[in-house]
């Protein structure tokens, strides 16, 4: 699975690099991956799996998925 971080969420990924590659042996809740890497769900505003927006709390992901998490985005 590839986890792409948008907005300021790259900050929370290992080495602060996006995307992060993960090998998943079986389907897993996305929220569990966020917890494992200490990515605070309070900072995640939008989640999509393979281009479709999903609910962070219930999304199941598998090894071939492209997952995007995006923080709120301010102006400037």
């Amino acid at each position, binding site marked *: 699975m590839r986890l792409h971080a948008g907005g300021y969420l790259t900050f929370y990924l290992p080495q602060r690099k996006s995307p992060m590659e993960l090998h998943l042996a079986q389907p897993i809740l996305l929220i569990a991956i966020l917890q494992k890497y200490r990515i605070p769900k*309070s900072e995640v505003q939008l989640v999509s799996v393979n281009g479709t927006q999903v609910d962070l709390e219930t999304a199941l992901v598998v090894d071939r998925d492209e997952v995007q998490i995006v923080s*709120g985005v301010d102006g400037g």
Partner: protein
Amino acid sequence: MIGQSEKILRINLSDGSIETEILADEFYKLYPGGKALAGFILLNEMPANTPVFSPENVLVIANGLLTGAPVSTATRYVVSARSPLTNSYGESEAAGFWGPELKMAGYEAIVVKGRAEQPVYVWIQGDQVEIRPAEHLWGKQTAEVQELIRQELGDEKIRVLQIGPAGENLVRYAGITNDLRHFNGRNGMGAVMGSKNLRAIAVRGDQRYQSKAHDPDSLLGLGRKLAKSVRENPLSWDLQQRGTPGIVEPLNKGGILPTRNFRQGVFENVDSIKWEVYEKELLTARRSCYACAVRCKREVSLNGEVSRYGGPEYETIGAFGPNCAVGDLQVIARANELCNAYMLDSISTGATIAFAMECFEHGLIDLEDTGGLDLRFGNGEAMLVMIEQIALRQGLGDLLAEGSLRAAEAIGGEAGFFAIQVKGQELAMHEPRGKYNVGMGYAISEIGADHLVVAHDPALANSESITFKSAIPLGIEEAQPVRSLSAEKMKHFYILEKWGSFEKVVGFCFFGPAPRSFIHPDDVLLAVNAATGWNQDIAGLLKIGERATNMARIFNLREGFSRKDDTLPERIFQGLENGPLQGEPYPRHEFQEALSTLYALKGWHPESGIPTRERLRELSLEWAEELLPEKAE
């Protein structure tokens, strides 16, 4: 101490007089620079209905009390006058090095009146102030002028604030640049300078801010702490890594990337203009403003050469990219170069060209009008030609140089619907249908559509987020959805508007204080008190901001503006054409209710929008009562 015996420089270009004025300490405490000082001067020294290009239009360039402090993001100054684009209170801020240098030269502000008979520039070196001829600079692009001034004065470290040919030609959204890389883009302040035949103000100073501070050790300690913390906060870290261009793709993902003149929220060619492409194709270095550890400025290379103008920010990418449907980052970067060489506001330029593209596609203007240019959405080369025509007022560019509102009135028909503006100023590249308080900011801002009135809605949408928690000291209590106009949301707006206005008074960048970025309100307070010894509290800082906002409001009321002008373009009240928010309008009825709620919070009459006498007294603005229209209570 900072705040004591602050000086302003008064220049009259009609008679060549130059005077210095010392501000009373008690006065400065109420109007501590920036937006507050400028608002006071404009209200008290310029009669209502002053023609924008007349010598009587007063141009104020004002530092904030913290501008030049050794604290990251405290670098900004305000340029203010009656705006040629909106006919309202005009204002535009910029960061960089020029404001701190003016402070080092000993001045808090410059007030320019009159009009020089021939082009001139001003040279300030401490107490030595000269008005010098500038005929040899007139008509030249900004990079050449900066070089010529530095050569002429024999010092490569001189900081140069200047307009470009667009300001000389009175393009109503001409801007001002300093050091070629920092911009007072919005509201046509460059055209006001041009109308005064004032091409540039060059400055050199040698005073250190901290030598005048009340508690220099605390200030320096705070500065060091903040410099270290930039990389420990996700928001400021992201600004350092990617800068504003990093938000292109996330906005598109959320369906709120303004596309094809705000018809759509998703751009099909976003992959060609996203940050990864910018980093690979354009980026050469990350640059900074004075004493700022955020380093959000991008340096880029074009055609193998490092640009002297810096790289395009998000607003520029948005305006010339998706909003004109141009998916070519090289073309967008060239558009950025042209705007900065001629010194045009890239937001209004891109938005006005997008307006013209939509008019062209609907047959309201044709090939004869465009001089044969195929001005359809997506034609990047035509867009580049049009930028030069606007700056030089050639062909159709002469009409577009008036801004989209005036151009629409001249074109007629449904062109007015395609002019995406408020009070005459074009919307920045943030989609109000996905961020309702941003929409409220566009509507109510005294300068026309402005995206920097309040921190954007996502910052306060989740009570567990770092941005929400950082706003609690300001009085924020309850998280609110981004697409809500509830009474609680209006409370957010009211508090954040005061905070944002305070930032514009004291010289902080939008990318410094929380909730947008990393500086906690307590540290903002510490900076003010260490500089001045005032012993302020957060409520006092918010009051400074509210006072400044009310002066700008009074300026507009005096010019005939009213509640009917606090609105949004008709298109925004209709649904987006694509993306996750397809079909979703900005809710018209709720907007009117929210506006009434907000007026009440601000102490403004619900119908007329005029501040009540009680609120003016709370803000120590009793003197302004006589300037109000008769409906005041």
